[in-house]
Structure formats: structure tokens, C-alpha cells
């Protein structure tokens, strides 16, 4: 009897330890999605070039994550990239003339969308579109431009 008790306690401790280890791994090592708002609204933005922006990338305002990208697709009518993003309903007073730009966290980090507040009296709401957008800075284009400039500057 004593022996089965200690086996049961040992097994219980082992399983608890294993579960807490799994919990630690899923919550602490992965940083990805801190954003998990229940109530959101969806807005649309068109970019000339999205670089390597992916769905689930964060949408940040002043560096604080307030939403995320839900889909990235090519719009055949306007011939540019259409990005859908959801924003936490808690932030429902973002001016509708705010501009969205694709930024990179760190030198070679992942890309995210940064919103810069505008001055309009009307706010973004479900289904509205952000008109002012700035494309991602693509490193290759930048180097290309630099080389062209350096070449012409030398003459």
C-alpha cells in the first residue's frame, strides 16, 4: 500500500513537472502573438510594395502593438498589394487620415506595420481604408539606388 502510494505521488509529480515544462515552453520561448483581443475591427490598406510582410505581423502605434495583419494579397484591379489588418476595438479613436508604413524591427528583423496618427476628426472603423501608406524599404532597391548615385556622383 505504501509502495503504490509513493508510485502514485511520483507519477503525479512527474506529470505535473512535464506539464509545467510544456506550459513554460509554449508561453515563454515563443514571443509571436502578444496580441489577443476579442473585439476587433478590420481596416484595409494598399501598399505599392510590402517587402516581406506576412500575415500575423503586428500593427503598432507608437511602438505599442494594437493589432495584427490578417491577410496579404495582390489586388488585380489597383495592381498593388492589399493588406487587411484587425485592430483592437479598445482603440477606436484613430484618425482616418493616419498613415501606415511598413517598418522593420532591428536591422534584419521581421517587418511590421507602424501607424502614425493624423489630425482628422473622423475615426477609422470596421471596413474603412487607410489611404496614406508608405511601402517597405527593400534593401536591394536601396543598394541599387546607392550604387547609381555613387556612380553618377563620381563624374
Amino acid at each position: 500500500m505504501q509502495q503504490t502510494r509513493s508510485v502514485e505521488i511520483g507519477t503525479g509529480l512527474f506529470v505535473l513537472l512535464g506539464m509545467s515544462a510544456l506550459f513554460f515552453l509554449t508561453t515563454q520561448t515563443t514571443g509571436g502573438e502578444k496580441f489577443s483581443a476579442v473585439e476587433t475591427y478590420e481596416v484595409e490598406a494598399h501598399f505599392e510594395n510590402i517587402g516581406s510582410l506576412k500575415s500575423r505581423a503586428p500593427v503598432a502605434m507608437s511602438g505599442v502593438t494594437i493589432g495584427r495583419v490578417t491577410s496579404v494579397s495582390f489586388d488585380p484591379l489597383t495592381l498593388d498589394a492589399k493588406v487587411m489588418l484587425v485592430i483592437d476595438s479598445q482603440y477606436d479613436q484613430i484618425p482616418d487620415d493616419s498613415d501606415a508604413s511598413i517598418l522593420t524591427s532591428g536591422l534584419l528583423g521581421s517587418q511590421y506595420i507602424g501607424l502614425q496618427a493624423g489630425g482628422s476628426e473622423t475615426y477609422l472603423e470596421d471596413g474603412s481604408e487607410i489611404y496614406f501608406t508608405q511601402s517597405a524599404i527593400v534593401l536591394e532597391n536601396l543598394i541599387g539606388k546607392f550604387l547609381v548615385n555613387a556612380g553618377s556622383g563620381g563624374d
Partner: protein
Amino acid sequence: MRALIRDTYDTVHEFVRTFGAFQLFFLRLLRHSPRIVMRRPGLVVTQIYNSGALSLVIIMVCGFFVGGVLGLQGYSNLARFNAEDSVGAVVALALLKELGPVITALLFAGRAGTALSSEIGLMKATDQLSAMEMMAVNPVRRILVPRFLGGVVAMPFLVAIFTCIGLFGAHIVSVDLLGVDVGAFWQQMQASVDINDVREGVIKSFVFGVVVSLLAVWEGYNAIPTAEGVGRATTRTVVISAIAVLILDFMITAVML
């Protein structure tokens, strides 16, 4: 020439037959599993204790040093590119996706797999399994299924513990001893590890748990009932488990990429 062809044919034939018997054996264990879990959960708990809790020491010690050496190697090699801050990301990805499941499976085969097959083999050699059949007790259900299920349950937990301890070891080596910034260590890790990486490790650990436990039980059950046969079955458990784990690891990684 004819003899050679016949030998080759016999070998292939025997291999395919064994492989098929192995699959049927797996299905047989699965068929008996729900009843054992429902009616005799105590048997499974005892085996989780034997395979899991008793393997904790070796798993934790090895995990600590594997993590530590990853931290050391990661630091000294990344420092050449002035990227030693990324050591957290490197260690976490390596442990979660590859080293955690694979090394734990190899250790598990050595610690718990051999124990299972020698125990079952010895039961067979001393006619305990036949005695059970005489008493109308199905040895597959009473002996093999709980041991198999115990290993399957224990493996994912062991892998998770191994990985956590490994991270802890890497943290001690790179942050406390080598002076990597603690914030950079965790932030770089969290920025590059995705929930899918954790999922890949969990899937691998589950598959390896099934394979290693199944092989151990199979080898024990089919051991030649002599002292030498039991010894050979134990060796085969470790050898075949190691090969199977490494091949499956490659296949799962290829599928999940």
C-alpha cells in the same frame, strides 16, 4: 547463382514478413489500449512511473549539459559575427526542434526501452507469460499494453523537461558566465521562436515515444527465451530504436518544413 537469388529472396521475404507482423502487433496493442485505460489505469500509472519518473535524473543531467554546450558553442561561434546576442534564439530553436526530441528519445531507449525489453524477455524466458495464458489472462493486455502506454505518455513530458533544463543550462553558461545580456537572450529567442516550432517538437516527441516503446515491447515479447536471447533483444532495442528515431526525425522534419 540460383542459391544467391534464393537467399536474397528469403531475406527480403523474411524482412517484409517481420515488418508486417510488427504492424499487426502495433494494431493489437492499440485495440487493447482503451480497455486497459478504462479498467486498469493503475497499471498504466505504474509504468509511467517506471519509464518516466525514473528516467528524470538522466534526462535532467543530460539536458543541462547539452544546453550548456550549445550555449558555449553558440556564443563562441556567433561572437565572430558580433551576433552573440542571438545565442538564445539559436539554442531555443536547436533544442525545441531537434536536440530535445532526438536526444531524449535516444536516452529513453537506453534507460527505459532496455528495461522494458529485458523485463518482458525475462518474463518470457521464465515462462511467466505462458503461465498467465494458462490462467486465462491475456499477457498482451496485462503486461505489454500498460508498458507501451506508459512510455507513450512519458515521452512528451520528458522531452519538455529536457528542453526546459537545456534552456536553463544555456542561460547559465551564456548569460551568467559569458556575459550575454539577459534581455537580449530572451527577446531574441521570443522573436524567432514560433508556436509552430514548439508544435514540431511535441509531434516529434510523441512519434518517438510510440516508436521506442513499441520497439522495446516488441523485442522483449519476441525474444528467444534464453539468457543470450534476452541480452540480444535488449541490444536490438537500442540499435533499432536509434536508427528508427534518426530516420523518422529526418522524415518528419522534411514533411513539416
